């Protein structure tokens, strides 16, 4: 049986926090460069250039891509044949704390959502555990900024709802997010399951590589249709108009109940940050 020490987990999470926050993912950077080439509106083109320059400068200077270094969301895929030595949750949060300190990242986590005393430590993060076959531990850190997180919406649709209504809902969420959520967006959509599971799927959808469409052909078609419709909204970079309002629309689905049809839309700003390592 493979044994993974909590020390190894602390170190890995710490590295992933710094990497995710300072090194923009290659697929995102490449699609931003494509967007820059395609954009005809001069001001929007300049803004896209600033976004690309920002990513390069952050990498060079080891600075956070965005001052909102997010609430860290950690996805863990635990192979059922491994043994973790020590307290796993403690190790994850310790790793977050170390990484955020080391990377001079922002301490944005307040301990009580109602009392709202100023942040004193960098934790806790949000953790999604999944158990899979095998003997690997896959760790992903997604620092989620709240400019875009605040624009999340959910709708529990009637099961006989026309698909056009669902599309309209999704597009309205994007319109509503407008310039506040730092377009061009990566749009994560969760459809099915229960309300909590649809929310999880929407978040997970953000992690999918940007040019990969859903395996189900009717969902892939829906992704493409929404992508093209959102890019016709003329939101553009900083909400100041232009062709580039979204970089990708990713939908994840799951079986659901005969009486329901949950839909959650979660948005990421253009700085869709994440880093992954397999132990």
């Amino acid at each position, binding site marked *: 049986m493979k044994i993974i020490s909590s020390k190894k987990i602390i170190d890995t999470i710490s590295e992933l926090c710094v990497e995710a926050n300072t090194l923009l993912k290659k697929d995102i950077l490449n699609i931003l460069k494509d967007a820059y080439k395609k954009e005809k509106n001069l001001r929007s083109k300049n803004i896209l250039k600033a976004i690309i320059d*920002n990513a390069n400068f952050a990498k060079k200077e080891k600075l956070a891509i965005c001052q909102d270094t997010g609430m860290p969301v950690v996805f863990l895929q635990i192979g059922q044949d491994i043994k973790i030595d020590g307290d796993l949750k403690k190790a994850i949060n310790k790793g977050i704390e170390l990484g955020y300190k080391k990377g001079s990242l922002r301490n944005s986590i307040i301990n009580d959502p109602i009392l709202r005393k100023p942040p004193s430590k960098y934790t806790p993060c949000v953790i999604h555990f999944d158990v899979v076959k095998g003997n690997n531990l896959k760790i992903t850190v997604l620092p989620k900024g709240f400019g875009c997180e605040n624009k999340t919406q959910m709708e529990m649709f009637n099961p006989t709802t026309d698909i056009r209504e669902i599309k309209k809902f999704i597009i309205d969420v994007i319109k509503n997010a407008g*310039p*506040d959520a730092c377009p061009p967006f990566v749009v994560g959509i969760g459809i099915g399951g229960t309300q909590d599971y649809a929310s999880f799927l929407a978040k997970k959808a953000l992690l999918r590589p940007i040019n990969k469409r859903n395996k189900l052909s009717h969902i892939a078609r829906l992704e493409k249709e929404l992508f093209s419709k959102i890019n016709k909204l003329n939101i553009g970079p900083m909400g100041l108009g232009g062709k580039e309002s979204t970089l990708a629309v990713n939908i994840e689905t799951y079986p659901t109940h005969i009486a329901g049809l949950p839909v959650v839309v979660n948005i990421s700003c253009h700085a869709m940050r994440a880093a992954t390592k397999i132990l």
Partner: protein
Amino acid sequence: MKKLSLPLTKGKIKNLKIGDELLLSGIIYTARDKAHQHLVTLIKNHKKLPIDLKNQIIYYCGPTAKPKNKIIGSCGPTTSSRMDKFTPILLKKGLSGIIGKGNRSKEVVDAIKKYKAIYFLTYAGCGALLTRYIKKAKVLAFSGLGPEAILKLEVKDFPVIIGIDSLGKNIYKSLKVPAYRQAGKSLKV
């Protein structure tokens, strides 16, 4: 690109129009949600403010921690609409400019027009790049708020786009972009 030196007196504001791109040099102050709440509480209780707001600029920003050997950490704008309910009160106190991202409520647009102020946008999600325009930074007030403390920043050629001008013209309305939902109403003092 046009350069503008601060403080932002009313005479300088008059000629600025939506869509204009400018480079600001001089002193600006950071303040976001909690600092706004504190400032407005002080105003309500007729207490002295830690800064005289007359002809000053507030930048909606909570930077990351200062890395060693750097002036400031990543320091881009945060969403302005969350400050909507506080803004008219600060404008009444003499604040002449704001830097942020995104649209404002009708109350804020009306107050900007009434007090002949101005609303600037800066590059959203470009906090690393914007550090290049900050020459000095120090905590000025509410240090207990951590990233939400008020910082005094000295900026040089800080890039902005005019979002709402002193006539109350709004860049987002001029663009035929979707109608964005307006944030909550302003607080009454």
